[in-house]
C-alpha cells in the first residue's frame, strides 16, 4: 500500500487494478454499467478491444488465458447470457493466465431490460464469484481474482452492480505493479479439448477445485467481521453490506467477499453467536437459500424487497419487518430521443404507416414513447429480427404486411446477423422488412465503436463491415441505403413499396448520431492526418 489516495468509480478501480496486475488483454462489449472499465483500461495504456458481442469477447479472452496471459473480460449482466455458452465449458478447462469475467448487474434496471441476478451464474457454471462493496474492494478483488484464477486454473466472475460501478469512493492502490510473464503456448489436450472423454474427468476436477477454494475461503478468504450486539447478526454481500452497516450500526455483521463457494462454517459460527440472523442481499434470495440449505437458520427479506435496488431506507424497513407499501418514487422527466436525432424521422414514418414494430435494444427503443409510440416489442439484443419474422409467419396477411424489424447498427453486429440468415432461410410468405438504423456508433452506452464503424475502441481505423454488402451477399432480395440527404418522403415511399412486396428487404438508414457526429468527423480527419497534434476529441464537444 502506498500513501496515494484516489477517488475512483468502481469501474475505474477495476481498470486500474487490471493495469497494475499486468493484464495483457481486455475484451468486452459495451453495456451499462460495465462500459467504462475497458475505456479506462485503454486510457491508462492497457490493450483493450470491443468484440462484436460478449460471447466472442469471452472466447477471445479464453484464448488469451489459455496462452498464459492475464485477461479481463467485461460485460453487463444480460451480456453474460450471451457469453454463457463458452462460460459453462470454460469452467471445465484449465487456464494458464488468470481470467476475470466481470458481470456488471443492474438491480433496479437503471438502464437495462431486466434485473436478473447473476449470482446464479456462479452456482450454475460452478465458478468462483467475488463481490466488492466499493471501489477499494473492486480494486483489491481484481487482484485477488487473478490470484485465485491462476492458483486453481479457473475463470473467476467479478460481480459488480450499478452502485459499485458508478459510485466514486476512495481507493489506495498497491505500491507496485506486476509485469506478467510472456505468453507461450503449452499443449494440454485433456485440459482444453472438451470432448466427453476429457470433459468427464474435467467436471470432476472442477468440483474438486471448488471444494479447495471453499476450504481456502473458510481459512483465509475475504470476510469482514464487524463485531457488535449479539441480538442481531447480519450477513451481507456487495453494496447491500454498506447499506446494512448504515442502517444497523449496532448489529454484528459478516460481510462476504468471495460469495461462491461460500465459507459456510464461518457463517455457521457467526450464526451461533447471534440471536437473530438476517441476510441482507439485493435481488433474488440466493444467499439466504444457500444458508438454509446448509442448515443455518437465516431470515431473509420479505418478497417485496426482491424488486429494485436496496438502499439504507429499504434495509431499515427489512430490519423492522415492515411490509407496508413503500412511498412511490417521484416521477421524473423521462428520457427522449435527442432533438435532431436521426431516428426521429424513421419512427414518424413507422407511426404514420401504422407498422407493427419489432424493436431492439438501444437509444431507438425510446421510439416506444410519445410522440412516436412506434414500437411493439423489445426483448433482448437482436430479437427484433426473429420476433418480427415469427409474427409475420402466423399473423393474418393484412397484419403480417405491417410488421417491420428495427435494429441499431451496433446491435445488428452483436446479434442481428443470424436473424438475417433466418430471414433468408425461412422467409415468411409476405416477405419481411428489416431496418438497420445506422447512426455510426453504439450511442446508448456512450458512443463506443463497433465493427460497423471501421474504428477500434481507441477510435483508430480498422476493418469495417458493410451492412448492405452483407445483406446482398446473404441473398436478401431488396437492399437499400437511405442517407441523411434523402427526404423523409422518400423513406416513406420506400417502406410503403417494400411492405407491399412479398420479398425479403433490408433498408439501412444512415445518419450519424447527433451527439457523436463532431467526434466522428474528428476521428475521420485524424485517420487521414488532417488534425493538428495538440487538438483532441474532448475539445470537439465540450
Amino acid at each position, binding site marked *: 500500500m502506498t500513501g496515494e489516495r484516489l477517488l475512483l468509480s468502481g469501474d475505474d478501480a477495476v481498470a486500474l487494478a487490471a493495469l497494475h496486475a499486468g493484464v495483457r488483454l481486455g475484451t468486452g462489449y459495451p453495456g451499462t454499467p460495465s462500459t467504462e472499465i475497458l475505456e479506462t483500461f485503454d486510457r491508462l495504456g492497457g490493450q483493450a478491444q470491443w468484440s462484436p458481442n460478449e460471447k466472442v469477447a469471452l472466447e477471445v479472452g479464453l484464448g488469451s488465458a489459455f496462452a498464459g496471459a492475464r485477461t479481463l473480460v467485461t460485460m453487463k449482466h444480460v451480456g453474460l447470457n450471451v457469453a454463457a455458452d463458452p462460460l459453462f465449458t470454460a469452467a471445465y478447462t484449465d487456464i494458464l493466465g488468470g481470467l476475470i469475467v466481470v458481470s456488471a448487474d443492474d438491480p433496479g434496471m437503471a438502464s437495462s431490460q431486466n434485473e436478473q441476478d447473476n449470482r446464479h451464474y456462479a452456482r450454475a457454471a460452478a465458478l468462483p464469484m467475488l463481490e466488492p462493496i466499493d471501489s477499494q474492494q473492486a480494486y483489491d478483488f481484481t487482484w485477488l481474482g487473478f490470484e485465485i484464477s491462476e492458483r486453481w486454473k479457473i475463470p473467476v466472475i467479478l460481480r459488480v452492480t450499478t452502485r459499485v460501478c*458508478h459510485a*466514486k469512493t476512495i481507493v489506495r492502490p498497491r505500491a507496485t505493479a506486476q509485469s506478467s510473464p510472456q505468453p507461450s503456448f503449452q499443449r494440454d489436450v485433456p485440459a482444453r479439448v472438451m470432448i466427453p472423454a476429457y470433459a468427464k474427468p474435467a467436471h470432476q476436477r472442477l468440483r474438486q477445485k471448488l471444494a479447495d477454494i471453499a476450504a481456502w475461503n473458510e481459512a483465509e478468504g475475504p470476510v469482514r467481521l464487524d463485531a457488535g450486539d449479539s441480538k442481531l447478526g447480519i450477513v451481507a454481500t456487495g453494496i447491500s453490506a454498506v447499506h446494512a*452497516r448504515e442502517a444497523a450500526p449496532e448489529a454484528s455483521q459478516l460481510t462476504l467477499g468471495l460469495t461462491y463457494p461460500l465459507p459456510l462454517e464461518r457463517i455457521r459460527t457467526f450464526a451461533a453467536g447471534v440471536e437473530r440472523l438476517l441476510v441482507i442481499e439485493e435481488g433474488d434470495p440466493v444467499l439466504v437459500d444457500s444458508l438454509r440449505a446448509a442448515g443455518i437458520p437465516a431470515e431473509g427479506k420479505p418478497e417485496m424487497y426482491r424488486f429494485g435496488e436496496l438502499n439504507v431506507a429499504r434495509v431499515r424497513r427489512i430490519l423492522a419487518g415492515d411490509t407496508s407499501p413503500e412511498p412511490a418514487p417521484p416521477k421524473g422527466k423521462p428520457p427522449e430521443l435527442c432533438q435532431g436525432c436521426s431516428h426521429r424521422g424513421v419512427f414518424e414514418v413507422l407511426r404514420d404507416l401504422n407498422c407493427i414494430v419489432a424493436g431492439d435494444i438501444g437509444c431507438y427503443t425510446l421510439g416506444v414513447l410519445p410522440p412516436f409510440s412506434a414500437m411493439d416489442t423489445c426483448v433482448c439484443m437482436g430479437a427484433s429480427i426473429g420476433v418480427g419474422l415469427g409474427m409475420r409467419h402466423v399473423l393474418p396477411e393484412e397484419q403480417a404486411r405491417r410488421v417491420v424489424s428495427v435494429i441499431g447498427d451496433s446491435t445488428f453486429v452483436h446479434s442481428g446477423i443470424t436473424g438475417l440468415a433466418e430471414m433468408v432461410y425461412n422467409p415468411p410468405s409476405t416477405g419481411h422488412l428489416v431496418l438497420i438504423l445506422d447512426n455510426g456508433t453504439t450511442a446508448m452506452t456512450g458512443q463506443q465503436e463497433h465493427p460497423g464503424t471501421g474504428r477500434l475502441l481507441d477510435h483508430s481505423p480498422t476493418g469495417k463491415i458493410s451492412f448492405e454488402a452483407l445483406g446482398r451477399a446473404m441473398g436478401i432480395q431488396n437492399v437499400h441505403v437511405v442517407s441523411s440527404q434523402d427526404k423523409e418522403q422518400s423513406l416513406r415511399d420506400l417502406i410503403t413499396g417494400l411492405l407491399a412486396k412479398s420479398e425479403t428487404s433490408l433498408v439501412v438508414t444512415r445518419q450519424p448520431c447527433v451527439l457523436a457526429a463532431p467526434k466522428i468527423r474528428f476521428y475521420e480527419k485524424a485517420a487521414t492526418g488532417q488534425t493538428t497534434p495538440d487538438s483532441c476529441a474532448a475539445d470537439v464537444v465540450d
Partner: protein
Amino acid sequence: MKVKNVVIAGLGGQGVLKASDILADAAFRAGFDVKKSELHGMSQRGGSVSSDVRYGDAVLSPMVPPGEADVLVVLEATQVEINRPTLRAGGVLIGPDLLDPEAFKNKKSLNVALLGAASTILEIPEEDWLAAMRANLAEKLHKLNEQSFATGRAAALARSSAT
C-alpha cells in the same frame, strides 16, 4: 465530522454529473472520506438526473437516504418538487431562482454557479473548490466557471444576509 449529504439534480445535459464530480473532488481534496453515486445511461437523453455526494469522517452507503439531504442543489425549476423529498427538515434548497436570469447569462455554467452558492454552507476550503474545478473542466472553461462560481457564492451570501 458527521457525514454531510448533498444531492444535485436537474435534467440530462445540464451538467448535474459534472457538478457532483467537482463537489466530490473538492471534498476529497479537503481530506474527507467521500462517496458519490448516480445513475448513468439515460442521462444524455434529456431525462431527470440526480447525483448524491456524501462526505465526512467515514461514509458507508454511497446514496443519500430520502429525507436526509443537508443540501439540495437543483439546476432546473421543474425538478425542484420531485427532488424535495430528499431534503431533511431544516435542509437547504439551492435552486436556479437564486440567480437573476437577466444578470446571469452563462447558462452552461449554472451548475458551477449553484455549487458556488452551496460552497457558502459546505465546509470545503476555497482552494479545494478551485483545484477541483480546474481538474474537472477543460482549460478554456476555467475562467468562465471561476466567475460563475463567484457569482453564485455572492448571490447566496447576499440572500442569507438579507434574511
